[in-house]
Structure formats: C-alpha cells, structure tokens
C-alpha cells in the first residue's frame, strides 16, 4: 500500500518538477526563452530528475534491504535459546517468522516467542514502509526544491540532462558485456572442476565418449571415458545435413520470393515460411522422431539400406526444415538490399533473369548470404530439442548419416537432468561441453562478422 502511494507520489512530483522547472526557467528570463542556455523543457527534465532519481535510489535500496534489516532487528530481540542454533536452524526460524507474519498456517502450534517475533516483524515492516513513504517523499521534495533553486539562465540544463541520459544508455549497452561475462564465468567455474578430473586433451581429442561413472563405490564395469570427438562429429554431421537441406531450399525460396514472385504472393509467402521458424523446437522434435524417422527408415529399407531408427538423417532433415526460414528470411533481406541499378545494368546487356541473379545479384549479396548461413550454422549447432528427441544418445563416431549419432547439446541436456551424483565428472562434463559450444558459436560468429566486413560492397 505504502509503496504504491510512494510510487504515485514520486510520479506526481516528477511531473510537477517538470512543470515547475519549465515555468521557472521561462520566468527567470522574463519569457525571452532565447536567453536561456537550454530550452525550458530541459530545465523541466532537470528538476524532474532531481525530484525522481534520489528518491528512486532510496526506494531501490530500501526494498532490497528491508527484509534483511528488519529480520536482523527481530532476531536481535529474540531470546538466545532460539537464535543460538547453527545457520540452518536460523534459516528455519526466519522462515517460520516470515510465514507467521504473512499469515501462512503451518498447521502446528508455534513457540509463543516466535509468534511475538512475527508480530514484531509485522510492526517493524509497517513502520519501515511508512517511514520509507515519509523519507522518500521528503527526499523527492528536497530534490525538487534543490533543482528548482538552481534554475537560471546560465544553468546548463541540457548538458546535465543529456549526461544522465547518456550514462543510462551506456549502462544499458553494458548489459550485453555483463551477460557474456556471466556466461563465461558460470561455464568456466564448473568446467574447470571437470578439467581437474579429466584432462582437457583427452576431452577434446579423445574418440570415445561413454560418460559412465560408478553409481556405487563398490561398483565396477563402467568405463567412463570423456573423449568428446564423437559428439563434435555427430553435431557436425547433423549440422551438415541440416545445411544441405536448408541452404538450397532457403536460398532458392529467397531468390524466388524477391526476384520472381509478385508482391501479392510475396506478402503471403514470406510470413507463411516464417511460421516454420516460429514453431517451437519441441514440436519439431516430435515430428522428427515420429514422422520423419520412420519415413526415412522405410525408404532406406526399400532401397536395401540399413537405417537406424534414430538416424542422423531424419534429425538433420527436420532441423534443416526449421532453419529454412532463417536462411531465406536473412537472404531475402540482403538480396533486396542489392540495388536495382545492378539488375538493370545486367538486363541492359541482354542477360536473362536467372543469369542476372546468378552472376550479379547473388555475388553482390554473397557476404550477407554467407553471414546468414553462418548464423544458421550456429543455430543448428546449438539446437537442443530436436536432436534430443530424434537423434538418440549413442556416441557414434561415424560419417554415415543413416546411423544414430549424438550431439553436444543433447548430452548437456541429458547429463544435467540425469540421475547421477552431482559432483561426478559426468555431470560436470556438461559444463565442459557448454564451454566448447559457446566458444565454437562465438568463433563462427566472429568469422561471419569478418566475412561481412571484409567483403561488404558499399551501396548507397
């Protein structure tokens, strides 16, 4: 309640601050706005920032620390017999107090001291909320007054406001860096523990993947080898099949849509193809396992081939289908970006449409197309659900698309939700694989960027 009120008050004061700042700025030069350093609305923003920001910081600080602070105060007031336990007991005590304070019945008679503490907690929280309301509003008013007082013809309000805004913008773009750092750290930490048990060389160059560790100390008969080459090979095989499906179909669709189809057809076709990209991968997984795999198997048997029921081929084909719109959409964009003048130039020399496309348009769009394919490749490498469902888990070092293979992502998903002991290298290897996966997609993307930068033709 108090928090809602505070938010409302802050919003109101910000708006008022804006108006006051604007008015005062205009008034300070007697309405001759040109004499101001910045236009009046910047003065308004300046005051509004002073009114809103400090109070907002207080608000964030308080909401983040409130629970902890009050809990410390409540615990301090409790008799030692309750609080002297180990940290675990203390955790339970806190939970108990919170539950009672929130009116959650635990179905049990609680210690009267705990009940009293819970009431105490409730009271303190109320006090806290009210004082937050009071302090927050005061801070906003003080800020408003301060900002308001500083307004004058010489105040560089625009520069101040723009600096605040640009700091905010910079912070936003740093989120990307933080995310990358977070990913690397969260993978690296666990991966290092894995590499402490299994040597990175064995992991990267070993050709036998059988992540079995003993379930019991006295159990033997589980090999436990962590050579990830079969996984990389499996991933590569499926990715290649997917690309063999997706690149020609996607590229030709893009070409047809942007060069041949009339606009009405194109308006319909493009979104229809994009639906393929929007279908959740779980759905593709089922399609691959239940429709495509038996189909491929039957066809294979008719041809006298020995097809595994979880062939890399079926997973790859379905993944390719998923990636078609990815290739076609991106290629379509780059093909459209090729200027009409190039096509005209080619037609003007008497080239047919397909000659123009093959010899002028596609080469001109090639860097973009290559980048699109690279992105599609990293998408295929990182795809999880389809391969988990359709490609099986047999770590098979083979180039035969009719056999079952497994991929890096499949192993990550199954290793992490497995029934293993959680500190075993088997579980940790998932992070090792994750790290490799991250690095591979990273370098692929780097290459794609380089390609684009190096070969991009400048058309204006």
């Amino acid at each position: 309640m108090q928090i809602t009120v505070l938010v409302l008050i802050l919003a109101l004061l910000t708006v008022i601050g804006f108006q006051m700042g604007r008015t005062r700025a205009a008034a300070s030069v007697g309405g001759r706005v040109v004499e101001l350093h910045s236009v009046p609305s910047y003065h308004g923003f300046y005051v509004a920032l002073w009114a809103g920001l400090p109070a907002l910081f207080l608000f964030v600080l308080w909401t983040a620390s409130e629970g902890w602070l009050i809990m410390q105060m409540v615990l301090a007031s409790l008799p030692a017999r309750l609080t002297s336990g180990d940290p675990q007991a203390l955790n339970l005590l806190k939970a108990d107090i919170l539950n009672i304070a929130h009116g959650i019945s635990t179905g049990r008679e609680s210690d009267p001291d705990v009940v009293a503490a819970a009431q105490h907690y409730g009271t303190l929280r109320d006090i806290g909320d009210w004082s937050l309301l009071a302090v927050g509003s005061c801070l906003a008013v003080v800020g408003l007054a301060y900002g308001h007082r500083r307004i004058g013809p010489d105040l560089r309000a625009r520069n101040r406001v723009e600096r605040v805004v640009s700091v905010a913008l910079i912070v936003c773009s740093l989120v990307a860096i933080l995310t990358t750092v977070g990913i690397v750290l969260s993978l690296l930490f666990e991966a290092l523990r894995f590499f402490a048990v299994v040597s990175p060389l064995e992991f990267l160059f070993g050709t036998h993947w059988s992540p079995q560790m003993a379930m019991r100390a006295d159990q033997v008969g589980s090999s436990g080898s962590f050579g990830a080459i079969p996984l990389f090979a499996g991933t590569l095989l499926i990715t290649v099949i997917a690309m063999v499906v997706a690149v020609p179909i996607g590229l030709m669709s893009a070409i047809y849509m942007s060069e041949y189809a009339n606009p009405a057809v194109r308006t319909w076709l493009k979104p229809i193809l994009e639906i393929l990209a929007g279908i959740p991968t779980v759905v593709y997984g089922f399609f691959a396992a239940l429709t495509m795999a038996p189909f491929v198997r039957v066809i294979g048997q008719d041809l006298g081939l020995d097809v595994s029921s979880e062939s890399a081929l079926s997973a790859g084909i379905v993944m390719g289908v998923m990636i078609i719109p990815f290739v076609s959409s991106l290629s379509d964009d780059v093909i459209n970006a090729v200027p009409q003048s190039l096509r005209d130039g080619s037609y003007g020399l008497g080239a047919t449409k397909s000659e123009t496309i093959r010899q002028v348009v596609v080469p001109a769009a090639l860097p973009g197309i290559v980048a699109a394919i690279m992105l599609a490749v990293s998408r295929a490498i990182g795809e999880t659900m389809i391969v988990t469902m359709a490609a099986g888990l047999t770590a098979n070092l083979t180039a035969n698309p009719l056999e079952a293979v497994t991929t890096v992502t499949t192993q990550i998903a199954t290793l992490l939700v497995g029934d293993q002991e959680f500190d075993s290298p088997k579980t940790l290897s998932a992070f090792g694989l994750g790290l490799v996966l991250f690095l591979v997609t990273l370098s692929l993307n780097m290459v794609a960027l380089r390609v684009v930068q190096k070969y991009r033709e400048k058309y204006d």
Partner: protein
Amino acid sequence: MISRKHVFTAAAAVALSVAVTGGANAQSRDQIRAVGSSTVFPFTTAVAEAFGKGGKFKTPVVESTGTGGGLKLFCAGVGPSHPDIANASRRIKKSEVEQCAANGVTQITELKIGFDGIALAYSKKAPEVALTTAILWKALAKEVPVDGKLVANPYKKWSDIDPKLPNAEIEVLGPPPTSGTRDTFNELAMLEGCKKTPEVKAVVADEKAREKVCMTIREDGGYVEAGENDNLIVQKLNANPAAFGVFGYSYIEQNRDKLQSAKMDGVDLTAPNVASGKYELSRPLYVYVKNAHAGVIPGIREFIAEFTSERAVGDEGYLADKGLIPEPKDARDAARTSAVNLTPLQL
C-alpha cells in the same frame, strides 16, 4: 559532477549487494516443493494433486530434475529456498547423506513407496518372445565369450544366439548412461544374465574384471541409447516391430494395446510378480523428506500421511492406476508408521 557520479555508483553497488543477501535470506514459502527423479515424478504429482484437492494446503510443486540433480538441490541446505522433498529412483547414497549432513540437512525420512518394473517391450505386431537375462546379456554385452575367448559381440540377429528366437536384427532402445533406469538395467539384467552364463566365469577369472565385462553394453548399434522420453520409444517401437524397448512398467500398462512385454526367465511382468520378487527386473522407488521443514513449511506431515495412505499406495490405490507396483501390505504398514513419525534415515 564526478564525485556525485561516484556516490551514485556506490549507492547502486550497495543496493545490489544488499539485494543479493537480502534476497537469499528473506523468503517465505507456503507451498511444498519436491524435486528429483523423472520415474517417481508421475507418482509424486498424483499425490500432490490429491493432497491439494483436499483444500487445506496449496498443491505442492513437483519438479523433474533427475535423481542426482534432485538430491543435490535437496542436500544444499535447510530453509525455504531449498526443497522439502526429493524423489529418487534409487536409494540415497552414503556420500550424498554425508553431503547433506555437511550442509545441515541431518534428519531425513525415507519413504519406500513401491516398485517400478522394467519391461523389455516390443510391438504387438510382432510374435511373442520369451527372453532370459542370459540371452539378453549375450545380445547386449560388448564382449562375449566364444570358444573360450572374449571377443567383440558377434551376434547381429536374435537367431544367432538361439535359433528359436526371431530372425531379426538385435535392436534394443534403452536409456542412456545418464539415466537411473540404465543403472538398474545394468545391474539387474546385465549382471544377472552374465552370472547365468557360465562361460564367462571360465574366461575371466578375476571377479572385478568379470563384473566389468558383464556390465559393459555394446556400442555398435545393437543397443540404441534412446533418450528419456518414453512416449517416443513407445511410438518408435510401434514403427519398428523388430525393435525392443527398455522402460518402466507404467508405460506398458498404458500401452497394452500397442506393446507387449517379453517374459523374463519365464516370468510375466505383472504387479504381483514384481511385488513378490519373481520378476527380477524391478527397482524400488524412494521419496526423501527433510524433517527440519516439517512444521515450518505448511503441510509436510499431512503430505507424508497422504503419500503413505492406503488410498495412494495401497493395492487398489490411485498410484497403482498410474503404474506403481505397491509394496506388500505389511511392509507398507511398517513404512507408514515410521514415515508419519518422521523416523530419520540411518544408513
């Protein structure tokens, strides 16, 4: 300007760090949380739903994380940010109990809720097959003794092992090494089958080495690690009548019209046969409860009472409908008493 910027940065940093500690500490929870094995998941969820329908407590949240992942979360500590219940398709290990204790989770109640039979199933379209664990071992082992030597498994077709068996390629879709089902399968089918194959003893004298030979599964395509989505395996078996699938009893129960399960050493996979121990490919299922949470998280005792009640795990209970094979009556009664009293687990 610069000093003010520093003040802001410092304030933001303080806010962030306080948010971390505060967020971790100040939590309350009015809902039971369970984590763990995907095999036990259907049973725990059924109990949770019945418990929630009772109306006194919120429906517990049950997460399928795998036994190991579940026990990891379960053992991470005491307090509302840690789960109250862990489902396991195997017994908790000593090392895990110790890990638990190190994190303050000292009192754990163990509920043995029943059994899961492991079926070797195949499509209804195929003729009936009777297997033995010995045949199974020969079909699936990586190396088998032939003429007094250990060689890479030469059997491509079932009829290579025994002419009476169908003349079809050996293809068994089974759980991956990450799965608890696989471990059970290794131990109950492979090891037993191996023991029943006297030639092995003659070839490999050392017991440890022999056990290793016994439990290593072939990787040349005869055994396909097929993931943990059992519905998919059901459909794959239907599409490929020559293949066998290894999975839980409940799936056989639900797909009797599509699948049949092979007789193992002459015994049919039925609930009575499993409960009496005649059908050997079965494993007990467990639920572990954190005693310290009873009384803090609402409804834990009541949930245990529901879980061990006759209407849940009894012979006619609703878990039997879901495919659980109940324990014999006297074992259930004993388990109920110890569970309701939260008798801590002693290993």
